[in-house]
């Protein structure tokens, strides 16, 4: 890892962390409502994967604010969406769980667990016959790995040798259900070993995530078929704001907090002499400022008009008929 890369990773992870901390505060204040799933603790996965997979199409689950920001979505537009404002990336119609931006090939925020996997597979099929070798990146959690959609997707992607990376974010909990209660093993890459290359990595280390996704990207770009990565990680917060996380022990949380992806990158970079201390202070300040700007933007942004209720339902041709 070179210094520029480490700085970029650090800044994006810190920005993601600050964004989520602030989103939580704004939720408490009542500026954000509904379900809010925070990515705190899992920033290495979001940032490492998005910085490695820059070109193709990205399909995500609903814990996707940091993925979206790392992909290049303006934090202002993400925050405004969380606030339900018209200037939000989905015009306030999607909210926290639905951040779509085709210009970034980012199809983020499917809130049906595993539901985006067949869609990602179909997109990979299209890219293959269109001769676009960048392929598809699909990220999902351990909960999704027990669903029918998951197994159908693994089967089809392997049968048709599709250019797709399946990235499993194993944070061990599907809301409050530990993976060991509902799966024959907790090392979930075992589920697909007969279908495609499958590895398990440390998802708390941004460099490891980045390097493995780069490997996967090269593999699918060469037309060799799908690739599977399981990243062990942990969310420090509850599943959503309505979950206090009572089902987990303090000790378990502390173990993972000691592996914090942001703090550990900082320590390692300092130890290796890659980055000077002053950078981190400045980066922390800048991240806070960028989030503050996002919040101010979201506060100032406008409420949609009631007349927008029936907008965006159909294409123009169909809208004319339907209305």
């Amino acid at each position, binding site marked *: 890892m070179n210094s520029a890369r480490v700085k970029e990773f650090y800044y994006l992870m810190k920005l993601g962390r600050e964004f989520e901390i602030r989103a939580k505060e704004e939720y408490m204040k009542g500026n954000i409502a509904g379900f809010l799933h925070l990515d705190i603790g899992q920033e290495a996965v979001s940032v490492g994967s998005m910085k490695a997979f820059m070109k193709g199409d990205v399909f995500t689950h609903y814990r996707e604010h940091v993925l979206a920001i790392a992909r290049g979505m303006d934090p202002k537009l993400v925050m405004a969406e969380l606030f339900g404002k018209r200037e939000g990336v*989905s015009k306030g119609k999607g909210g926290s769980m639905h951040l*779509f931006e085709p210009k970034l090939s980012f199809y983020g925020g499917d809130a049906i667990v595993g539901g985006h996997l067949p*869609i990602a597979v179909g997109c990979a*099929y299209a890219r293959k016959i*269109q001769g676009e070798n960048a392929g598809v990146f699909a990220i999902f959690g351990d909960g999704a790995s027990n669903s029918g*959609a998951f197994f*159908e997707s693994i*089967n089809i992607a392997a049968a048709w040798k599709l250019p797709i990376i399946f990235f499993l974010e194993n944070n061990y909990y599907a809301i409050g259900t530990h993976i060991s209660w509902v799966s024959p093993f907790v090392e979930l890459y075992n589920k697909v070993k007969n279908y495609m290359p499958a590895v398990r990595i440390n998802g708390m280390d941004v460099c490891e995530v980045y390097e493995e996704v780069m490997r996967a990207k090269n593999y699918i770009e060469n037309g060799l078929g799908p690739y599977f990565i399981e990243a062990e990680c942990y969310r420090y917060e509850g599943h959503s704001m309505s979950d206090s996380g009572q089902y987990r022990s303090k000790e378990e949380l502390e173990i993972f907090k000691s592996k914090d992806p942001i703090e550990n990158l900082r320590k390692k970079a300092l130890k290796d002499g890659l980055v000077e201390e002053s950078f981190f202070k400045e980066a922390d300040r800048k991240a806070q400022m960028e989030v503050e700007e996002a919040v101010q933007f979201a506060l100032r942004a406008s409420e949609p008009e009631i007349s927008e209720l029936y907008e*965006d339902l159909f294409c123009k041709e169909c809208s004319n008929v339907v209305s």
Partner: protein
Amino acid sequence: MLYREALNKAIDEAMEIDKSVVILGEDVGRYGGSYRVSEGLFAKYGKERVIDTPIAELSIVGNAIGMAIAGLRPVAEIMTVNFSLLALDQIINHASKFRYMSGGKLAIPLTVRMPGGVSRQLAAQHSESYETIYASIPGLIVFAASNPNYAYHALKKAIFLNDPVIFLEHELLYNEEGEVDFNEDLDPFKAKVVKEGEDITVISYLKMVKDSLKAIEKIEKSLNITCELIDLNSLRPLDMQTIANSIKKTKRAVIVEEDHKSGGYGAEVCARICEELFYELDAPVLRIAGEDVPIPYNRKLELASIPTPDKITAKIISWAKENGV
């Protein structure tokens, strides 16, 4: 031209015009389609565009949505509407909502074809009419093809619409012969007055249009009146204008559907008529629908579970007499 040939021609021409049109589904390729709708297309367009899928309906539609996002125009075939329930999550939670919940940023140009209705002794899990489910979902367009002409024009137009279309076919219509007017500029969203009349409006769709027409011949002779028959064609959106024009003239409405009566599609049509045209009516709306039972295997019971031309005739005559026609 046969109904299935009209569908085949629509897909073939769409694929010819636009390379982004692909078809996918179980047995659509090498086998030629379980109702022969895609016959010949595999040989003509190859395996990349005519895609044989596993029996995994969730993925058939889910994959098609992904293809649509990537810029293709997929036409997914579900072998029978019963199996479409396995794809319901993709159709309802994804296809119908993506444009809206992305603030208009995503378009899903997707067509999902599915044959349904009661065929001949296929029993409960292969004989259903689920149009009421799809027609109740915002974000979907639902077309129901009762004849080769509409099948050809509406399917071809559906493929080029930029929104998800559920395209309903009926299993007993595939080998029905009918004229196709290739020069017609058909509007697939509009209901069609199949036959004009003065005294009763009969509203129907899919196979019941044909059965209603048979019934009407007898009713007209028996009562010395004339009936107007409307084929809805589009179930969502519903063309209330054509219905209103007719009811304002006849003052009486009958709805004939193969669907189960409780919560069936006709319930929505009836509700809209009562809501919007109540003071035009000289008689209560008559609903002729399938019985509220799973479709039985035994032929006698099967026929007892759905409307037939004879039953439609008898019910309308008796209702007409009660209401002073």
